[in-house]
């Protein structure tokens, strides 16, 4: 079907549903706060003052636009389609997470809330939230699984320097999903004066749509830059998917461009067949977790399973509802690469381009290498380099047997 005789993409519906996914599966206490947030969100598209403030901060605080960089040596090394990198790693705080954090901080200010909370896995979203809290003068509390607090000591200290309180979460598996549970408990208790800055395109309506819209600056810039620098749209976009915010941000402005293939890359961990992965779209089934219906990794009793990925930012058993929907309608294709492939890609990009990708983004780079070989030399791949890899040096050094 051509884009001309098809209705433009128009999801979610009023209840936040993307087909059978999304919605709002929360305790009753939160419904009112979500209604308020939804009302504000629905008025944003016509709110010129808000748009100007957001764009001002993206330009002058975050440092946008980020470059679209053609990676010639990487392309030559692999030998296939042309690979370009969307450099979200060059944002202030080193990842795409800040785009959404700035947008939601503006919303919190608009709602008159003086306190923000967040969940974090690797710490990137926690750092982004602590950063905007400092910038806007909010109190800030970041929930982080006890295991992740140990693994990401540097980011924990960084958040504290920014004035945030970091609360280690010792329930459940002590990782990102448990941090999200705890943040929801905080929000239920302090809903009057607190805004919950969810870091991904997950959670109850309106978060998946809200976070998507704040992140689409990635895709809009990519579209303009492709036309200007390359003379046409890319053939395929590739991004890693944990919750899926960087992928959604890149993909969404291209949703009605049928000629552009969209590929999301999940974490296959030690291999899908081992069960030790974080790839719900590849090996999960529809369920309800953290406020919305999406693909999840659960066992036969409906209990959420523990996940594994070398990358803490992808180590999550759920995924955004819109990605779930796109998988089912076939608008995007979702693949998975292992820890080992991601680490190889991390090293490859360092060596060929002098760019150190986050281990999350390394998953996208790894799959780009596979995809490039399947395509002609004149085809163009854009990879979302969602974050920089400084935070992962310790992990790689450990693998190399190096201690500092």
């Amino acid at each position, binding site marked *: 079907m051509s884009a001309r005789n098809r209705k433009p993409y128009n999801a979610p519906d009023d209840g936040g549903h993307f087909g059978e996914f999304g919605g*709002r599966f929360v305790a*009753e*206490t939160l*419904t009112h706060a979500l209604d308020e947030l939804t009302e504000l969100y629905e008025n944003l598209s016509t709110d010129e003052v808000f748009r100007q403030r957001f764009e001002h901060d993206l330009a002058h605080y975050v440092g946008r636009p980020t470059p679209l960089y053609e990676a010639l040596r990487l392309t030559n090394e692999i030998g296939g389609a042309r690979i370009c990198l969307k450099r979200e790693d060059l944002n202030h705080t080193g990842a795409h997470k800040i785009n959404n954090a700035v947008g939601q901080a503006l919303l919190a200010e608009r709602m008159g809330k003086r306190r923000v909370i967040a969940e974090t896995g690797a710490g990137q979203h926690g750092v982004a939230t602590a950063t905007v809290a400092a910038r806007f003068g909010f109190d800030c509390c970041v929930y982080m699984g006890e295991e992740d607090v140990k693994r990401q000591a540097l980011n924990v200290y960084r958040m504290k320097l920014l004035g945030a309180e970091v609360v280690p979460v010792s*329930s459940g598996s002590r990782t990102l999903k448990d941090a999200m549970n705890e943040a929801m408990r905080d929000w*239920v208790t302090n809903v009057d004066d607190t805004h919950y800055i969810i870091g991904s395109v997950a959670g109850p309506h309106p978060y998946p749509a809200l976070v998507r819209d704040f992140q689409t600056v990635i895709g809009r810039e990519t579209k303009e830059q492709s036309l200007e620098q390359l003379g046409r749209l890319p053939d395929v976009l590739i991004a890693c998917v944990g919750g899926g915010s960087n992928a959604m941000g890149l993909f969404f402005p291209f949703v009605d461009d049928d000629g552009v293939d969209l590929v999301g890359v999940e974490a296959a961990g030690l291999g899908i067949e081992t069960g030790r992965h974080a790839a719900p779209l590849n090996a999960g089934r529809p369920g*309800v977790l953290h406020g919305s219906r999406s693909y*999840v990794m659960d066992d036969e009793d409906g*209990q959420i399973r523990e996940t594994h990925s070398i990358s803490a930012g992808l180590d999550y058993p759920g995924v955004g509802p819109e990605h779930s929907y796109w998988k089912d309608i076939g608008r995007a294709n979702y693949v998975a690469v292992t820890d080992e492939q991601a680490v190889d890609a991390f090293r490859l990009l360092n060596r060929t381009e002098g760019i150190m990708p986050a281990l999350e983004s390394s998953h996208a780079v790894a799959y780009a290498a596979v995809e490039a070989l399947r395509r002609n030399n004149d085809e163009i791949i854009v990879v979302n380099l969602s974050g920089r890899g400084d935070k992962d040096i310790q992990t790689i050094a450990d693998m190399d047997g190096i201690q500092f």
Partner: protein
Amino acid sequence: MSRIGSRLETYKRAGKTALVSFVTAGDPSVATTVPALRALVRGGVDILELGVPFSDPEAEGPTIQKSSERALANGVNLVAVLDMVRDFRQTDTNTPVLMMGYFNSLLHRGPEHLVKNAVEAGVDGVIIVNLPPEEATDIQPAFAAADLDLVFLIAPTTTEARARSIVSVAGGFIYYVALKGVTGAQHLEVETVRKEVLRVQSYTTLPVMVGFGVKDPQDARRIATYADGVVVGSALVRTMEALQSSERQIPGALEAQVRELRDAMDESDQDARE
């Protein structure tokens, strides 16, 4: 009318406030649950809520979170919970039993599966903490067809318009969440709750049960002056947690604990009748 409906109807006519208990199925061990349920009934509990453990219980405070983790460690799943209800029903066919839990561990095999097995085991109603009415329209027909009550919650933050629409689709009773927070939290404001409960009662004939944060006979007594029922959960779970290394004492301790609550509520009901 369901077992829940007829029990509450009788109470309403007699001016008696219902006592509702919550314990997690399979905590601290699978073998303790049915004796605990029987002890609760002996002590004066009118309606039993049995928690179905879930790996990610986002509305629970630390007490019930830990209880849920212990139950999961004991291998408790939906099938095991239904077995406990079946066992309980061998000696008690009168006391209404509800299952309380989260969407994913209750509905992972779809509404028909849940409804059929729950009714067969002798369950009277289900409370799904993270399922507001808007998301329940698909599953409601299966519940209605089997006369299984799907109970909804109303919170202090629920607007009046919304509360009115919730009572129009709710089954069994209304579970009024007495505080903004998780289960077992500290700051219960009985007077504020009173006003809210009276407001809800003004536009529904369904009984209104008040829960989240009820700790002791004083709380129960004060709430009994206006609510149709009082729900106690974390306080009972704490008792069981404290006795997990001497499980035999659990039934006796629970019975004594709920009897105190029951007595306090009876005094309040007595005052109201005089």
